[in-house]
């Protein structure tokens, strides 16, 4: 990484130059630097609305970058050790989908773990590729899906030599990493691409003590949520590519679904966040790691909670752990994660990232301060004092192995009927069912419904998880194939 070059921020600088030119706008957006919408200016501020401008020669165009956006993307590629980087304005969802649409055509097989984000399976609905799931290992105590065991990946690759790509989470929402270097070697030996979802891994690129990043491990493409640990605005993201993929083809794929009016607020936030990461990321993530470690020690000393860290690494399905994550197992207190999540928000004014059946995840970032950590720990201690109960035997399996009976695309577009959920066992589901967050499907289009899955869905709903993806928001009915 060329630190001197990283000090510049081409998109941001071009916007500054443009602002000083005081160009009279006879183009879109119609609010004309906010003058046409004073209420919006009051809400967002003059500086913000004046940056909301259209693509034009001095500011380049995201659909076909040739000047300042291209330079900014080159700098991002350099900062992340990639051959090329693409600014994405449709969230990491758009980056994930662009990876899959680049790698797969209709009928192609893609090998992936089941605990992928819904955006991955949505991409399969779009392109008609066939998922081959590698069942992730499940930790029976904390009840979460872990990484993929390398031997399981190898078996899937050997069983499906015609597959075109392997998809890997690095890390999972909970911070768990598979052995990415080994998976890259296995896939490349067989001529398959490796696509990596790094929605929760932007920071991996900026600290040597953190798990290996996709580009460093030699993966072909990676989707990086700059707006999560990278500090840019919500909905902005990066797609990274290595020398092994045709960068022009990726741009064409991106342009299939991307807006032609990309927001300069999002792009400039990517640009200055990349600069910040390149110049100060190492120090920031050192601080974030130590805050998370401190929180882990303090939470574990309360008793009753289990804040797991590097101690769960097992060399295989948990090849490495991202210590910036703060995941806490709550079930020994007799409370589900979602209950603790709700208590923290409703009673203590603390909003955490999510709660699932057995765990909570608090997101620690460069914006946190130690006194806020003390609040979180204090609140958890108080919750133990006021709300803990003897842990009863409750559902603990967060992961149920899917039975793929049709491709996501076939199932999504097939003739279907809406049935009461209890009557759907044995049928093939045509829609998604997931708790959001984390947004990992319990059922995806094309999967067979079982009694076990129905029990789990109703239990999660009863515990207050926000259930999404289905046509019937109450989830009393499910769409199944006729």
């Amino acid at each position, binding site marked *: 990484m060329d630190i001197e070059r990283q000090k510049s921020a081409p998109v941001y600088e071009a916007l500054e130059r443009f602002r000083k030119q005081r160009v009279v706008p006879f183009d879109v957006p119609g609010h004309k630097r906010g003058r046409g919408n004073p209420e919006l200016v009051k809400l967002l501020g003059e500086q913000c609305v004046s940056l909301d401008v259209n693509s034009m020669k001095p500011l380049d165009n995201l659909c076909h970058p040739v000047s300042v956006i291209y330079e900014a993307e080159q700098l991002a590629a350099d900062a992340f050790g990639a051959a090329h980087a693409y600014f994405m304005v449709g969230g990491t969802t758009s980056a994930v989908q662009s990876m899959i649409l680049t790698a797969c055509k209709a009928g192609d097989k893609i090998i992936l773990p089941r605990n992928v984000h819904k955006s991955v399976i949505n991409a399969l609905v779009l392109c008609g590729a066939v998922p081959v799931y590698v069942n992730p290992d499940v930790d029976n105590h904390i009840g979460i899906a872990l990484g993929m065991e390398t031997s399981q990946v190898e078996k899937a690759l050997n069983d499906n030599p015609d597959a075109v790509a392997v998809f890997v989470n690095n890390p999972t929402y909970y911070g768990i990493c598979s052995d990415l270097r080994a998976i890259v070697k296995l896939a490349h030996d067989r001529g398959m691409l490796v696509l990596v979802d790094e929605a929760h891994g932007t920071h991996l690129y900026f600290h040597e003590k953190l798990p290996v990043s996709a580009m460093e491990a030699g993966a072909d493409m990676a989707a990086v949520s700059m707006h999560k640990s990278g500090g840019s605005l919500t909905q902005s993201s990066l797609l990274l590519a290595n020398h092994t993929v045709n960068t022009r083809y990726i741009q064409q794929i991106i342009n299939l679904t991307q807006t032609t009016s990309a927001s300069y607020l999002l792009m400039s936030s990517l640009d200055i966040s990349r600069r910040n990461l390149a110049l100060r990321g190492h120090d920031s993530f050192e601080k974030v790691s130590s805050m998370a470690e401190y929180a882990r020690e*303090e939470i574990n000393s309360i008793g009753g909670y289990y804040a797991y860290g590097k101690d769960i690494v097992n060399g295989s399905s948990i090849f490495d752990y991202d210590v910036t994550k703060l995941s806490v197992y709550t079930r020994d207190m007799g409370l589900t994660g979602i209950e603790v999540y709700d208590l923290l928000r409703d*009673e203590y004014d603390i909003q955490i990232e999510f709660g699932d059946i057995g765990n909570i995840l608090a997101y620690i970032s460069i914006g946190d301060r130690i*006194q806020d950590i*003390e*609040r979180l720990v*204090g*609140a958890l201690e*108080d919750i133990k004092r006021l709300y803990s109960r003897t842990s009863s035997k409750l559902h603990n399996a967060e992961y149920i192995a899917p039975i793929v009976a049709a491709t996501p695309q076939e199932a999504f577009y097939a003739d279907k009927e809406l049935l009461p959920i209890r009557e759907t066992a044995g049928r093939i589901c045509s829609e998604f069912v997931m708790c959001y967050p984390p947004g990992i499907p319990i059922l995806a289009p094309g999967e067979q419904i079982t009694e076990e899955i129905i029990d789990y869905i109703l239990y999660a709903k009863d515990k207050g998880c926000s259930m999404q993806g289905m046509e019937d928001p109450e989830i009393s009915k499910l769409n199944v194939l006729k």
Partner: protein
Amino acid sequence: MDFWFSEMHTSNVKMSIRVDKQLFSKESDFQRIDVFESPEFGKFLTSDGSVIFSEQDEFTYDEMIVHVPMAVHPCVRKVLVIGGGDGGVARELSYYDEIEQIDVVEPDEMFVNVCKEFFPDNAKGLDDPRVIVTNRDGLRFLRGKQDEYDLIINDSTDPFGHTAGLFTKEFYGSCYKALHDDGIMVYQHGSPFFDEDEEACRAMHRKAYKSFPISRVYQAHIPTCPSGYWLFGFASKKYHPLKDLDPERWNKRGLKTWYYSTNLHAGAFMLPKYVEDLLKEEEGAEKK
């Protein structure tokens, strides 16, 4: 020279104090601290641009937060002061002989040092041999403490700044746990007058009311506070601030005060109707 310090009490109301000179300005890990010399208020200290106390009106605040609970609780031996790095609260507490230990927990060491340098009248309270000053986060200090104190005084002023954690349910819960079965907690309750501050004031009462069996609010007039009007909270496991007030016992001590008296004590709990109403609303909200 026309030299003024200004503090925005709301986006539409500004309080200004004429300043002779600025004596100190530095940023710590927690806050920016400034000290000014002024003709009207003497020396005053600000944190991130808000007045924390001035020589001229600090007595009101320190007396009201100490003598009110001390005139109610029959025998206080161990006290915890959260914040209070200026020493004013410790100074008032040091007049009571039966107190054996005063823990002052102030996260910001620089705050303590600045007060020692510029406000020795307050800071002398910290020199009392019964006082133990710890530079630590209040919530962190309280963690794991159980059945230890007779009185906890939350001397932190700002529910939005670096001490926000001390105006939360987890803080009140931690205090409840750290107090003996007849313990009392008093705390800053903010100002109810401006719309901007009202919600914070309501939320504080809601949380304390839920955490303690007895939770009352009392008032004082402090010129440098927003609208000049300030509330304190009195949360207690056993003693009622009025029914258990023992004026005779307190007056026998013969303490010299400028603001507090046992007559005022009773009056301080008689609140304006609008304040009474908003507190009642929060109590009602909890019962639903």
